[in-house]
């Protein structure tokens, strides 16, 4: 069980921001942390890992105090926290083989081989990291993070640099590790389908504050009321065709055209984030 209440002033790109979070996370939960960039997600993860200090607050894990600013600025070093951390850039040690990267975290060759086998990389145990693909690197990094059998696994957008197939494979691996080792997992992610697949709880951060904290469905599904479906997108262009106003909206890398009435056309501006939804008919779904 993680209990925390933290405050930290951050100097972001859009001026100063106050990270102010109070959370309880149960043992074995899979929490997805999401929000626009600059909302404090990575900083939150780094604070939990002990890589960043806080201005004020307390963190306790399973009744052990990790950080308490009121008690002589107590802060447990990252070395003593027994956590797993997956970096965005993998952070494999370039001077060590795959196996050595794992045994560097804990000298347990047997367990290292077991983990590599679980992700299907046992044949690459003697390779150097530079010879691996991005997906292989991140799987090795995942195994390394598991070596000390941590109670908490922190994932900082671990899959953002990978292509779709590799993402799926790694999502599977993360899920297997999470379930097999009953590890509390906190993952920063921007990908709704990834969050939906993996997490049992989603926390939405905005300007350093928790604005939503619920299950994935509740946070991610954009429909409300009697809406059949609903998407958020960016308004790219408004143009007139005969007497109609047409808006071009980009939704998740796909463009759609929507008819606007004249008052909407005046109200909306290019660059606005808009919601497109429909109530009138049942959407059809078919396999591509």
């Amino acid at each position, binding site marked *: 069980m993680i209990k925390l209440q933290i405050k930290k002033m951050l100097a972001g790109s859009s001026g100063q921001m106050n990270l102010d979070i109070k959370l309880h996370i149960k043992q074995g939960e899979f929490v997805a942390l999401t929000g626009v960039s600059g909302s404090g997600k990575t900083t939150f993860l780094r604070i939990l890992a002990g890589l960043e200090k806080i201005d004020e607050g307390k963190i306790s894990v399973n009744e052990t105090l990790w950080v308490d600013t009121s008690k002589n600025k107590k802060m447990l070093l990252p070395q003593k926290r027994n956590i797993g951390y997956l970096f965005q*850039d993998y*952070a494999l040690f370039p001077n060590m083989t795959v196996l050595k990267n794992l045994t560097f975290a804990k000298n347990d060759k047997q367990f290292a081989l077991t983990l590599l086998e679980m992700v299907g990389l046992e044949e690459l145990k003697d390779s150097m990291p530079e010879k691996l693909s991005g997906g292989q690197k991140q799987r090795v990094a995942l195994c*390394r993070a598991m070596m000390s059998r941590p109670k908490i696994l922190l994932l900082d957008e671990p899959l953002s640099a990978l292509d779709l197939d590799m993402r799926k494979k790694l999502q599977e691996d993360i899920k297997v590790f999470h379930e097999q080792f009953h590890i509390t997992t906190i993952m920063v992610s921007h990908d709704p389908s990834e969050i939906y697949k993996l997490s049992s709880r989603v926390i939405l951060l905005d300007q350093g504050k928790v604005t939503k904290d619920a299950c994935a469905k509740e946070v991610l599904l954009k429909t409300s009321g009697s809406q059949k479906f609903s998407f958020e997108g960016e308004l790219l262009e408004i143009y007139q065709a005969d007497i109609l106003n047409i808006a071009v909206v980009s939704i998740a890398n796909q463009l759609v055209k929507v008819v606007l009435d004249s008052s909407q056309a005046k109200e909306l501006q290019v660059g606005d984030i808009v919601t497109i939804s429909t109530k009138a008919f049942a959407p059809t779904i078919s396999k591509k």
Partner: protein
Amino acid sequence: MYDLDWEPFLVSFKLAFYTTSILFVLCVPFAWYLSQSKSKIKPVLEALTALPIVLPPTVIGFYILFALSVNSPIGIFFEETFGIKLVFNFTSLVIASCFYSLPFMVQPLQAAIQNMPKSLIEASYICGKNNFQTIWYVILPNIKPAVVTAVVTTFAHTIGEFGVVLMVGGSIPGETKVASIAIYEFVELLDYESAHIYSFIMLAISFSVLFCVYYFNYQQRAKHD
């Protein structure tokens, strides 16, 4: 056949070896500290470290001579406690050389550590390793070209010393008479033949050393491309 006295070269190499060894041991932690520090005294330390590049060697030599002389507190302390003099002997040369060559050791190491991805250092911490283990197992093996550059240029720079040695060492054969001093004295005595031979040997050694460094770094880079 010209009868070459190798002693000045041996003194030069011995001096360079001691200086490089001492500086390496001291400068790895110091460069690590500078690379990680956000303290306000960091620019002061960096400026002090870079001073020997700017200052005339005679100035460094003069201050060291002044600080270590038998009339100074340090000089008196060493004379009374250990019964050793700190000037005009080999020890004083090593001390002076350590100051003189300091930037050549610190700067490449500091720059290389700063250029390392921060996540590697943090990953090492999360693997449970302390600063010493991180430096030894993660940092040094991954900045090998910088380590080679630092060690070799420090060594070569110490061999090339003249002004500092002249100030604090004098020219005691077998003790403080290094090759550069020997050449100076040959010229003073109008013995151009010896000066030519000694100078050429210095030139050849220096070029070979520098060539080896650049060749090693070239190969390291080629390996990664």
